[in-house]
């Protein structure tokens, strides 16, 4: 879902990555910039258990917006989407593809 304050979001879009690239990007953002995790954190680790909270999710969404130009409304998220970086990336890919 595009953010209402960004009606021209799709015009600003830089590029929509492939699903695999998006998964890798989400995983890297979480591991390197948002979460304080050790080497055991993988793309299949549970994000809530790893400490992801509302602020972190918003920061992640803003990073995604920065690289794709599309805002994904965080209210679309359910606990299932935060079971792993893979699951989250799947939702993002679905939203970005449909934007």
């Amino acid at each position, binding site marked *: 879902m595009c953010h209402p304050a960004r009606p021209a979001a799709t015009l600003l879009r830089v590029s929509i990555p492939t699903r695999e690239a998006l998964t890798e990007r989400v995983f890297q953002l979480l591991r390197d910039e948002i979460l*304080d995790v050790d080497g055991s954190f993988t793309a299949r680790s549970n994000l809530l258990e*790893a400490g992801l909270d509302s602020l972190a999710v918003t920061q992640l969404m803003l990073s995604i917006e920065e690289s794709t130009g599309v805002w994904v409304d965080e209210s679309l998220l359910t606990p299932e989407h935060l079971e792993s970086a893979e699951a989250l990336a799947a939702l993002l890919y679905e939203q970005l593809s449909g934007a």
Partner: protein
Amino acid sequence: MRGVPPQLPAHLPLTGADCFLRAFEHEIRRCAGSSHSSQLVLRLGPGFDAGIFTKLVEQVARAQPIVRAPIRRRLGVGPPAYCTRAAARRPLPEVAVHDSPAPDAALPARFAARLNQPLSLRRGELLRFDIVRYAGGAAGTDLAASWAHLLFDGAGSECFVRWLDACFRGAATPEITPDPNELAPAERPERSLRERGEGATRWQRWVSALGDPPMRSLAGPLRRTRQSLRYDVHTFSTQETARIVASAQRRAGFLTPMLFYLSVAIRAHHAVFRARGVDPGSFVVPLPVNLRAKGAAAAVFRTHTSLLWFHVPSSETGSLDALLAVLKQQRLDAIRSGHVENGVYAMDFARFAPTRLYAHLARSALRGELCSFFFAYTGEFLDGLDHFLGSEIRNGFHVAPVPPSPGSCIAMSLYAGHLNATHVFQDDVLTQREREIFAAQLREDLLA
């Protein structure tokens, strides 16, 4: 350095958020003769041993000088700091044990009275406990931990309780090694001094703009009056709470239920203004943001927060869902603008300012007001901890402090399937009738 664990420096500077709270502390002492104290309450079942608890507190205080460290500016300049070297000469935290014949649904009056008794930061009076035993403890015990708000934030106080319990069970020792975040709150990404300065300036401009249109709190602008805080605890049944939690998640999203609770709190305050026939103009409310590193070991001491400010014209409080939509948008805009980080930078720079100037600046943007009211939602309280020192925890919650102006604060949390909404207020700010109006609106919106 005798008595000081090697991990803690002799002078541990306060964080920016600590200094923010220290400014309140000084202002309340100066204008209201009291302190900015927080409280955590545990309502316990039978079997709690006050003697064991007292001994445990002594062990922890001897091992962790920060809990009784005088707070001063080093050589009168620079940011204020915990003087951990001087802590060993300070008294241990007070543990007062009282007896009462029978348990009561209402909390002991001495708990609220504690909030109005001054602490001396300069003398290291930072933490104390009140224990009320019913029938010698056989019928249960109420425990209140009261502390200078800058010693712990809400999350830190829960970490402290968990740690005490872990020490009791032998799962931890009083000589814990401070988490690195204890010494320097997590911050990422790194910013240059210039970037921090620019961010702090942007934050200051943002906060200054909150005064337009003007707002007023229930208490009105800063006044000299003796602090006389009381509180009402509204506890909802498990059935009601399940309904409330589902409603909060459906309306605000499962990650941001606090916005639902904040909407409800704004409307409860507005109901009182309506009953008075007064238009507050707008509502200005700060929301604490937990800045602990996501997923890192929890920092116990000091406050690790920034503030997100919300500013809503009173005309937009008519519908709960419309108000919620405004708050969601404002939260997103503030995070997008970097105001979470900017707030940290601003508070860090202000550490060097004289305390009175600090408090003056905080109020000058809002014509003598600080905000409409204080609000906190801390989610699950002591999540997963159902016993404390071997005694069942029947209920537990936070009591957040508030200066005589704005005079009203509401803190919400969940324990064992119950929502607790603790409304703290200055005694002369709300009449009995207004307290009933507030509670009725709160209940109506939560269960809407």
